[in-house]
């Protein structure tokens, strides 16, 4: 036999006092429990077969506003007949109405019922009483309802039940249906009651007072329904895209790379010229790159470096390259732009750190003059990794990428030949994304061209890879519209799991 909770015990005891049977309302009164508490106890006691629940449909009758008015003032025909009696049993209609102070809107009704009830006749505006008017059942029910409030039709005398329909037709009452629940102890229930129930105080919230005084030993801590749903709460958190940025940074750090950071407003020199991108290259056009209206020009580095870069563009300088065969412009190189890639930071760093080994990375903002839509942004994050050492190879670059992807949970990688203006040989990588069951293009990579390295006196191969990060973020977060990543929709941030 399962233990009974406090509310169940109280309900059983109330039933005992009601001789084993009673409607819920009565049990509420007897037990002093809340209605909901009795209902819950009724459910669990029924489940334990200690109590049977019976449901009965009831018709409830209650006065409406007009009904209440007439209950107080008397029905309109009663008001007329009473006045007529006062005026001697025969009088003009106007006099009767005036005496009764009857509202105009009730006049027709009053006259109709005087006639129907056979209390008086009206001829040529003269009212004449026919008989002593007895108190009708309709009037009895009306005053009973006024006195006692809503009544259950089934409990009324047969006589009064007939009056219900009269009042209903006169639209003086509201009739509604109600389910009456009645509880009754089963034989097993009687057994429990007969064995005796001792009420132990039951506590739902443990309090400091209970703990301090030791009273917790004497009370019963209510058992909770641990499966019941509770209110939903959300943690405050780091932005979901930032969490992936952090993860990528961690991967680089785990792989022994040092983080570098550089200007966002950059000169065309470091963004393009230093990377051997000719000044008439389509990528440098206004259609692809954000130029600044203010300020417009930056400063260039040491003259010897600028000259070496210029010569390399024009004729290859000492690199053995034929160069781009045009006249290089200093002014063009000074133009300020929003950097289009983090490689601008990389070449700045390499120019200052020529001693191998160098392993650096950045995960940072870059800009393209793009019309923003569901798959393109004008501002996004680029990841970039660089290895410079005496003996590093294209295959090493592939191996590094493979490890990088593996740490991101991307196990299958393919490498293809590709082209970038500042790397040779160049590669493109595609990774298999199991969630999408498809191959997705991620990072491009290659070895920096001699024309990039020579002007800065860099003597060893530089392996480089990079790519936009948002695509990866979208894959990881299941976001289909890239713009959503920067909408800062608090609902989305709250719902997006931290652990991906």
């Amino acid at each position, binding site marked *: 036999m399962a233990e009974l909770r406090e509310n169940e015990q109280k309900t059983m005891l109330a039933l005992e006092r009601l001789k084993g049977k009673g409607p819920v309302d009565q049990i509420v009164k007897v037990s002093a429990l809340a209605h909901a508490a009795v209902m819950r106890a009724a459910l669990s006691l029924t489940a334990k077969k200690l109590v049977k629940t019976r449901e009965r449909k009831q018709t409830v009758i209650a006065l409406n506003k007009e009904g209440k008015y007439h209950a107080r003032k008397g029905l309109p025909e009663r008001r007329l007949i009473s006045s007529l009696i006062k005026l001697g049993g025969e009088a003009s209609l106007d006099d009767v109405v005036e005496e009764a102070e009857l509202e105009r809107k009730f006049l027709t009704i009053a006259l109709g019922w005087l006639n129907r009830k056979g209390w008086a006749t009206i001829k040529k505006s003269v009212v004449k009483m026919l008989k002593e008017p007895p108190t009708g059942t309709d009037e009895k029910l009306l005053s009973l309802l006024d006195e006692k409030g809503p009544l259950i039709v089934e409990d009324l005398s047969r006589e009064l039940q007939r009056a219900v329909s009269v009042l209903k037709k006169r639209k003086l009452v509201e009739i509604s249906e109600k389910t009456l629940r009645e509880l009754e102890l089963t034989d097993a229930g009687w057994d429990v009651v007969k064995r005796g129930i001792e009420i132990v105080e039951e506590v739902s919230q443990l309090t400091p007072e209970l703990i301090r005084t030791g009273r917790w030993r004497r009370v019963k801590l209510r058992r909770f329904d641990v499966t019941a749903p509770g209110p939903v709460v959300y943690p405050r958190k780091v932005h979901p895209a930032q969490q992936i940025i952090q993860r990528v940074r961690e991967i680089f750090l785990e792989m*022994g790379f040092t983080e*570098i950071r550089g200007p966002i407003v950059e*000169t065309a020199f470091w963004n393009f010229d230093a990377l051997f991108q000719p000044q008439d290259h389509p990528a440098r056009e206004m259609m692809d790159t954000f130029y600044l209206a203010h300020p417009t020009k930056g400063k260039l580095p040491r003259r010897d470096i600028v000259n070496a870069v210029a010569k390399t563009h024009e004729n290859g300088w000492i690199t053995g390259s034929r160069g781009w065969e045009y006249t290089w412009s200093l002014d063009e190189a000074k133009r300020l732009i929003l950097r289009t890639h983090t490689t601008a930071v990389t070449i700045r760093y390499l120019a200052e750190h020529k001693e191998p080994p160098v392993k650096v990375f950045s995960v940072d903002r870059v800009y393209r003059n793009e019309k923003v839509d569901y798959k393109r942004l004008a501002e996004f994050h680029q990841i970039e990794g660089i290895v410079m050492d005496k003996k590093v190879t294209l295959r090493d670059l592939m191996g590094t990428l493979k490890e990088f992807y593996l740490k991101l949970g991307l196990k299958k990688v393919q490498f293809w030949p590709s082209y970038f203006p500042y790397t040779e040989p160049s590669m493109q990588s595609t990774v298999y994304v199991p969630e999408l069951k498809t191959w997705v293009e991620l990072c491009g990579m290659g070895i920096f061209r001699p024309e990039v390295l020579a002007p800065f006196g860099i003597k060893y191969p530089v392996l480089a890879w990079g790519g936009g990060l948002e695509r990866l973020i979208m894959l990881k977060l299941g976001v289909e519209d890239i713009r959503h990543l920067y909408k800062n929709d608090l609902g989305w941030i709250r719902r997006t799991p931290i652990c991906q």
Partner: protein
Amino acid sequence: MPVITLDRDRFSSFVGRSLSVEEMAKWLPWLGVDIEETEPDCVKIEFNPNRVDFSSYGGVARAFRGLMGWETGLPKYEVKEGKIVLKVDPAVSEVRPYVVGAVVRNIKLDNDSVRELMEMQEDLHWGVGRDRKKASIGVHNLDVVEPPFAYTTSAPNDVRFVPLDKTEEMTLQEILERHEKGIAYKHHVDWASRYPLITDKMGRVLSFPPIINGELTRVSSQTRNLFIDVTGTELNAITRSLNVLVTALADMGGTIEAVRVKYTDRVLISPDLTPQRMELRVDYANDLLGLKLSETKAIQALQKSRLDARRIGKGVLEVLIPAYRIDIMHEIDLVEEVAIGYGYFKLKPTKPATVTTGRQHRAGEVANYVRQIMVGLGFVEALNFVLANDVDHYQKMRRRAGKMIRLANPVSTEYSIVRQDLLPNLMKNLADNKHQAYPQRVFEVSDVIEISEKAETRAERRLHVAGVSSHPTANFTEMKSYLEALLTNLGLKDWPIKETRHPSFLQGRAAAIYVKGRKIGVVGEIHPEVLNNFELENPTSAFEIDLQRILKTTY
């Protein structure tokens, strides 16, 4: 990037073997092209701008045969001697100084090849010609005109001819003003007093370079003999464009014949398809690729890339590069040719021996401390763009716009400046989240950019943190407590607070924070007018500080 759609049957005939779409899609990427789309009977590929020779079926087919080992080494192209003269008027040096030409005879064209020819020209105009500035091509029906030809100039209104796709004669001036191509490309010539023109013996106009050809020499599937002109501002660019074009036409079955281009001081025989020569050290290739190829294997790999090579010394090869490979400018480019001929698919990844320990940048480290504290204080992180606009940034914040970093070519009014602080973005975030439950506490730790005259790039990137708290009882005291909790946990000991005036904050409820005598930021209750501007209904308090000032990070 340029695209070419390869019809399976037509491509098969160029390759000389029957190929399936699957075989094409499987092997083409190993040439360095992207498969854009595969359809039941064709493959659409995207090629890199350095390989304009892939703009024709013939060009892709040559490389494909090499990759598969079906035909290797240098493709041979013969240039027959010719008598046709193209005379260059010295006046062209003022506007568009260079021209070369070629004749292609006995070619059998159909609608497909005419279309291909047109697309190839567009790819060359884009890839080599820099949108027709450096080089532009005219292909003509040779049989309707009479050599010798002249590359000359004319005053804008002296000559009239019917331009391509038109029925009426127009002057050069009218073409620039009214013809679609004239409007699109007039900036290449409209600054000159005389415009370039190519005419025949009778003075009939073949072309108004780089704008439009004449209707007279229109090429159709009936055309058998072609005259080609390439004009431009750089001789190398036009000879290379011509080489790519004539080799593709030879692959279509034409016979190349030279044109004598007579400048006042010299005669150029064009096209010149002599292979370029370049040395390759086999060790250089092996060291970069991580391979140990013998000289013989390296030569075989180069031959598969449709180059030729011979040993000229220990470990040194002389490589012959076909005239259409205009992308090869340095020994390093030959290294990639070795890799492609060897097969990228055979390259196995290795791990580099380089051992280093990693370290995060101080700015990244500090930003992470800030994140930890702010999230602990109950704030959600926002991530906004550095790109901003002056309406949100200044107007709605009740600030007068001062000097700011402005874009010369903004893509939309939403992103026209670079932000100098974070708060306006956070206000925008609150405005966008009005339907979400309150209280809302949001922060951002990220970059802003300030103008700095002494800086190399006239701008300085700085790390800021800002926070907002918005709910019915938000106030100054609440936010000041949060800010002080942040500063304490960032290890600061002393930060005098002084009342300040700030247009975005309520007067008497705004304060400046100082560290070591320098102002590092501001905290206060947002001005109700600012709240109205962002259509916010809840009181909002906010702070923003410059982390750079207190944490000594460089960049």
